[in-house]
C-alpha cells in the first residue's frame, strides 16, 4: 500500500510518501504505526493524532496528517 505524509508529520518522517508491504499481522492503523515505528525513530515522533483502531484491510493508500488548518 501507499502511505502518504503531510505537514509536520511529513517533516518528522522525512518523506512525502512511500510504498510499504506490511506483514499480514499488521491489521489496524495502530499495528501499522507500531510496525513503521520499529523501522525508524522518526516515525514514532510523527504519529500523534490518529485513530489507531481503524482497520486497514483492503486499503490502497493511507495518509497521516495533523489536524487541519485551512481556510
Amino acid at each position, binding site marked *: 500500500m501507499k502511505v502518504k505524509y*503531510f*505537514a*509536520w508529520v511529513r517533516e518528522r518522517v522525512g518523506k512525502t510518501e512511500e510504498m510499504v508491504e506490511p506483514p499480514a499481522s499488521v491489521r489496524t492503523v495502530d499495528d501499522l504505526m507500531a510496525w513503521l515505528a520499529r523501522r525508524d525513530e522518526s516515525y514514532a515522533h510523527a504519529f500523534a493524532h490518529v485513530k489507531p483502531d481503524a482497520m486497514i484491510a483492503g486499503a490502497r493508500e493511507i495518509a497521516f*496528517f*495533523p489536524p*487541519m*488548518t*485551512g*481556510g
Partner: protein
Amino acid sequence: MTARVTIRIQQADFDIAKEIAALTQGRTDIGAVVSFSGICRGSEGSETVAALTLEHYPEMAEAEIARHAETAMSRWPLSGLTVVHRVGRIAAGENIVLVLTASQHRQAAFQAAEFLMDYLKANAPFWKREESTAGTGWVDARHHDDAAAARWTKS
C-alpha cells in the same frame, strides 16, 4: 435553473469580481450573492507574519470541499456557490480563500457562506506554515474552529 458549483484549488490569486460574474452571468433568478475572502493576516498576537505556506492533500481536498458544497446545497436553496482555495506561499495581505454563495434571498446565502467557511477551517485537508518574527512553524489547529464547525451539526 440548475445550481452552478465551482470548486478550485490553485496557486494563483483570484479576482473576486470575475468569480461573481461567472456565478451570476445570464441569470435573473439570483437576488443575493455573499462573498467571503480569507486573507493572510500580517500579525499573530505580538508577532509580525511575513507569509503563510499552504500545503494540501490534493486527492482529498477537492472531494472534501465538494462534499461540503453538496451539504450546503441540500440545506439551503442556493442558486450556486464558488470555493477557491489557494495553496503555496501566500504573503501577508494576499488572498487565501474565496467563498461565494448565491440565492434568491440573502439569508440562505449568508448562512451557507458561513457554514462553508466553518467547515473548510476544520475539515478540509490544508495545513498552514507560518513565517513570522517568532520563526517558522506549523499553525496549530484551533479548538474554536472545531466548535464553529460543530454548531452546524443537526442534533
